[in-house]
């Protein structure tokens, strides 16, 4: 082994620490209170989930007119019906009957010509209009034209369907996503979304504990020492320092280092002949738009794209995966994990995708344990703050964005009028 190989490499974009690039964020510890406070959680429900754009699916899930998805949003006290109309447009509605507010569709999705309420048979068309009321003449001055389903603003970006529960969203989806949306333009989402494997689990942890865990790679060398012994770490980069990071007003991204000297296991070696793996030394910059792996680092594995408030789109060459974290209570979260692949053309490719998927799933199983263990002691009061290192900058930035939406500490400071600066 040469001396060069054992010295630490500088994987940062310009030699500066990440925090030095964003001095306005400071370096102080960040408070634990937002992860355990019921008051904070109530504000998140109101000021984040009822205001921000939320990813609720992909266009491929509802390809034909009449195809629909049901998305329950307990944190917002509602359920959303997302449907493709006869005109091909995707619309969203509160999944609530106009009669006595029964939940209209109870399943997770399907295909239909109309929506009929199970309670009294009120029926709605694909564009939300009320089309039929049994025993209509017994009602008093029923104005059917005004009793359609309550619409919810919906739009798409790169095939991802978003909704916004604000009756009058302050920004369009395009404006809301801003620059991070632009950086992913040209990534082959449509091609890679042919096959989707998804899992869901209800975790006993605050939703931000989940978010934090997936916007840093510092934990890889320890938590994933068995599953990923040398994929994201190497002698020259033992702590999985990222190759780049970029913070936007609300969103952020990080390029994750990949060890091109990674030694595959015997089964991985076979799988690697057919693509689909995240660590691959044959990855092609040509297949990736300029906004992905923006520094064009040859030791690159994937980019994390953290879209506020609860959506991750993590892209690699040949596969991408997404997370949606849906809070249920201050200490409970419904988590959806999805891994996407192009359509397998051969048995070899199918095998390769299966191996990639299984490894991904097992790695996530290591993460899940930690998330619940953390939450189980958070309320102990033993600690009041998290201590963050340079490579945990994205977590610090998330705290800032949360506070901008929630205004919890601003309110507190006003209350005690002592001008004590909260560490956010």
């Amino acid at each position, binding site marked *: 082994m040469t001396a060069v190989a054992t010295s630490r490499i500088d994987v940062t974009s310009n030699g500066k620490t990440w925090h030095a690039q964003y001095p306005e964020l400071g370096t102080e510890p960040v408070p634990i209170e937002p992860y355990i406070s019921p008051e904070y959680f109530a504000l998140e429900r109101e000021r984040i989930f009822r205001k921000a754009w939320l990813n609720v699916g992909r266009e491929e899930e509802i390809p034909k007119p009449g195809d629909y998805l049901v998305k329950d949003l307990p944190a917002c006290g509602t359920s959303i019906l997302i449907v493709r109309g006869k005109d091909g447009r995707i619309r969203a509605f509160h999944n609530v009957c106009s009669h006595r507010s029964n939940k209209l569709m109870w399943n997770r999705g399907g295909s239909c010509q109309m929506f009929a309420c199970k309670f009294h048979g009120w029926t709605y068309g694909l564009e939300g209009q009320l089309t039929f009321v049994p025993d209509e003449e017994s009602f008093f001055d029923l104005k059917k034209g005004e009793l359609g389903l309550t619409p919810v603003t919906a739009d798409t970006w790169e095939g991802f369907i978003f909704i916004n529960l604000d009756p009058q969203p302050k920004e369009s989806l395009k404006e809301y996503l801003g620059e991070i949306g632009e950086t992913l333009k040209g990534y082959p989402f449509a091609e890679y979304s042919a096959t*989707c*494997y*998804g*899992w*869901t*689990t*209800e975790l006993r942890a605050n939703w931000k504990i989940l978010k934090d865990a997936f916007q840093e790679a510092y934990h890889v060398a320890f938590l994933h020492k*068995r*599953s990923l*012994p040398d994929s994201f770490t190497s002698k020259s980069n033992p702590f999985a320092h990222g190759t780049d990071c970029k913070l936007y007003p609300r969103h952020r991204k990080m390029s994750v280092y990949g060890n091109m000297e990674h030694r595959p*296991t*015997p*089964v*991985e070696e*076979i*799988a690697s002949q057919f693509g689909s793996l995240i660590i691959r030394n044959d990855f092609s910059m040509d297949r990736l738009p300029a906004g992905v792996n923006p520094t064009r680092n040859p030791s690159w594995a994937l980019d994390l794209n953290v879209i506020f408030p609860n959506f991750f789109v993590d892209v690699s060459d040949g596969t991408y995966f997404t997370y949606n974290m849906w809070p249920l209570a201050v200490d409970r979260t419904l988590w*959806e994990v*999805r891994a996407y692949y192009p359509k*397998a*053309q*051969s*048995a*070899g*490719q*199918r*095998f390769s995708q*299966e*191996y990639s*998927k*299984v*490894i991904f*799933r*097992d790695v*996530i*199983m*290591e*993460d*899940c*344990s930690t998330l*619940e263990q953390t939450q189980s002691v958070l309320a102990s009061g033993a600690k009041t703050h998290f201590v963050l290192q340079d490579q945990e900058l994205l977590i610090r930035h998330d705290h800032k964005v949360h506070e901008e939406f929630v205004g919890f500490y601003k309110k507190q400071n006003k209350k005690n009028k002592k001008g004590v600066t909260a560490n956010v």
Partner: protein
Amino acid sequence: MSERLLPESFQDLEPFAAAWSLATERERNRQRLSSTMEEIQAFYNALLPRMEAVVAYLNQFPLDSMPADAQQLLYLTLSLAEVAPAVELFKQPSVADGYDAARFVQMHK
């Protein structure tokens, strides 16, 4: 003797087919978690050296219209993907210090 599941040229793998030729991830994962390391290792040791021949054989068929015995052989390879982390990484059937697999629910088939 029961009917063979796998193609004739892969009869050496037939003893593993009943247990490991499984159509869904859920079934394969359950089989992994309910097997001993000895059973998993025996299956791994038998299939790994045959994978080159198996994949070459399977690749001659379109993925969506395989003969039934080839389909069973493909399922067998997917079980190799399922047990690989147990053998190669965790040295035990389940994820070491891992989450309860029953709580991680597949949304796909």
